[in-house]
């Protein structure tokens, strides 16, 4: 082994670091909150590409004027975003099909010709449903993972893994809250994927701990954890690195629509790799401190 990390000896540092990150994430979640996008809040989204360059200070007065007839376009209720010079995204509260069409006509008349790239409308009830579905999905996922790890390993391992998972998810979600990115359905997919990825990483380490214990290669559980982590370290880093390369490529070249999705994954992969090595593994030690070595890793 070229690298030798002493996990157990330094566990308090890692626990402290993780606690600080989680607290920061929770603070950002509570103070800033998530910026719920259309899928959650309901409303209309219109993405157009003007033929000429459009600037916010040019577009805003036009929208203010239209708002006199169509209150949904009002300064307080709309969100305007301009990218690449002439692509404009406008979010508004829910509009009927007719009102939306009136708005489009007005916008073309006053703002100049444009191409309609995207037009979405989501009812508010759908958003509420999405929130509850997301929470259900998260908990069903956690329960099934706990079940599987308990069957394959032991409940202690499952508990350590789940604590690490909560840690990863809270930090990823908190990070997105801090960045202020708008979250939609793909965000949920990303968070759940973090569950899958992080647990994947953790299990590789756990698997090794189990093996080391079975073969009695280590004198104590602490030694077993250290040995296992170091033995699987190259693999953890390499896999995270290749996944990181893939994510980075999508982030840089994959276009704007995947930005939130992929940033969430990026944070998740980084933190997931960290937690499987520095959090989940010493947690097993912590959860097992008072038990005899013979009791674990028997199945």
């Amino acid at each position, binding site marked *: 082994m070229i690298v030798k990390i002493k996990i157990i000896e330094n566990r308090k540092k890692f626990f402290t670091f993780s606690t600080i990150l989680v607290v920061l994430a929770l603070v950002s979640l509570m103070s800033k909150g998530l910026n719920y996008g259309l899928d959650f809040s309901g409303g209309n989204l219109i993405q157009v590409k003007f033929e000429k360059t459009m600037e916010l200070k040019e577009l805003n007065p036009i929208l203010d004027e239209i708002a006199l007839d169509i209150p949904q376009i009002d300064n307080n209720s709309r969100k305007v975003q301009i990218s690449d010079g002439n692509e404009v995204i406008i979010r508004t509260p829910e509009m009927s099909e007719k009102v939306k069409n009136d708005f489009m006509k007005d916008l073309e008349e006053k703002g100049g010709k444009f191409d309609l790239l995207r037009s979405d409308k989501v009812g508010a009830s759908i958003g509420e449903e999405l929130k509850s579905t997301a929470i259900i999905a998260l908990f069903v*996922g956690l329960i099934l993972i706990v079940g599987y790890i308990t069957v394959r390993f032991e409940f202690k391992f499952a508990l350590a893994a789940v604590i690490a998972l909560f840690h990863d998810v809270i930090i990823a979600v908190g990070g997105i809250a801090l960045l202020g990115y708008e979250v939609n359905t793909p965000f949920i997919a990303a968070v759940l994927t973090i569950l899958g990825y992080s647990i994947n990483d953790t299990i590789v380490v756990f698997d090794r701990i189990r093996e080391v214990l079975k073969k009695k290669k280590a004198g104590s559980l602490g030694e077993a954890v250290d040995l296992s982590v170091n033995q699987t370290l190259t693999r953890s880093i390499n896999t995270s690195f290749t996944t990181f390369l893939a994510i980075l490529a999508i982030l840089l070249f994959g276009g704007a629509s995947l930005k939130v999705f992929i940033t969430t994954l990026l944070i998740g992969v980084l933190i997931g790799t960290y937690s499987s090595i520095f959090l989940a593994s010493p947690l097993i030690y912590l959860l097992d401190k008072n038990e005899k070595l013979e009791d674990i890793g028997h199945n």
Partner: protein
Amino acid sequence: MRKGYMYRIIFVAIVVLSAAWFTMTKPVKLGLDLKGGVYVLLEAKPEEGQRLDNEAMGRLIEVLNRRVNGLGVSESSVQKVGDKRVMVELPGITDTEQAIAMIGKTALMEFKIQNADGTLGKTLLTGKALKSAAVSYDNLGRPQISFVMNLEGAAKFAEITRNNIGKQLAITMDGVVQTAPRINSEIAGGQGVITGNYTVEEAKNTASLLNAGALPVKAEILETRSVGATLGDESIAQSKTAGMIAIGLIAVFMMVFYRLPGVVANLALICFGLITFATLNFFGATLTLPGIAGIILSVGMAVDANVIIFERIKEELRFGNTVMASIEAGFKKAFSTIMDSNITTLIITTILFTLGTGPVKGFAVTLTIGVLASMFTAITITKVLLRGFTMLFKIDKPILFGVRGK
């Protein structure tokens, strides 16, 4: 041993070649976010006392299907989602407004007697009595909608006209009076025209809506999404670039870090790509934007199984075992780790698939296929290739595996 190995080579060759053939001959189905088009989610809203059973939902879907077909969109789809929702997808449609109007219209035609003061009496007959409707033109060449009633409807229509001679019979569409001709005599045979200030286009739409029939239950539009073709093209081009770069970087990394096994892993990665696309095709899965992200992500994760195996092989080599023995032991020891770690990912993708809608489902499908394909390629194809190379070139130097020999 030798014979078993031959069979394995043949098996792998067949799988990869058929995957390649399948990928080449059948293009992958693209989702609306990539192809452009209109997506509408409707929810049935039964009125008081109305039961929302399977039959009503079936009729709703049937009527929607007929309306969608009336739009002349190829590859359109009308699907039931959950108990009371219907998802309509219209790829390639550009006139969103028209599409949504067509799908969502209730097109409820009603016949009522109009009183002298303009108020309407109760509904005497509805569009259900209708047999067919078509566009016709009056003496001045103005478009109008002529209709023919079914037997029952015709009899009732005759009765209504007989009993109300001298009064005005209002024909309403979705509650709006279209025309209210005076009944001069009993009309038998159940034929009539609806006149209004129609353009030819409007008359055509109305006629086909009437033909499609009124919705058996009221349906409310919950969600509409439309993506222009340009945005879809842009997304595809960007995903292609991202995918190429990701695969290129990963391939270089694997070769630099793992030498010979790295090269093998890259060959396996190509097989992984072919198998993934072929499987997507085989199940008729639709590729969405998050789905593409799922594939690129699974490329990153696909090498994981290989990394786990190669690290094991390196460990064995460091113990001083021979190359061939290390390969055998490496695969054997890595197996349970690969299974355990991937099964948990599959648990998550299953949840995503079950609870997710639209693009999330697509993402779950591609990630699932990606994980399964990566397990298959790592365990089967990498093994066959690695053993093959080792035997063929009589490789016995650990350095080719990135391990300095003892």
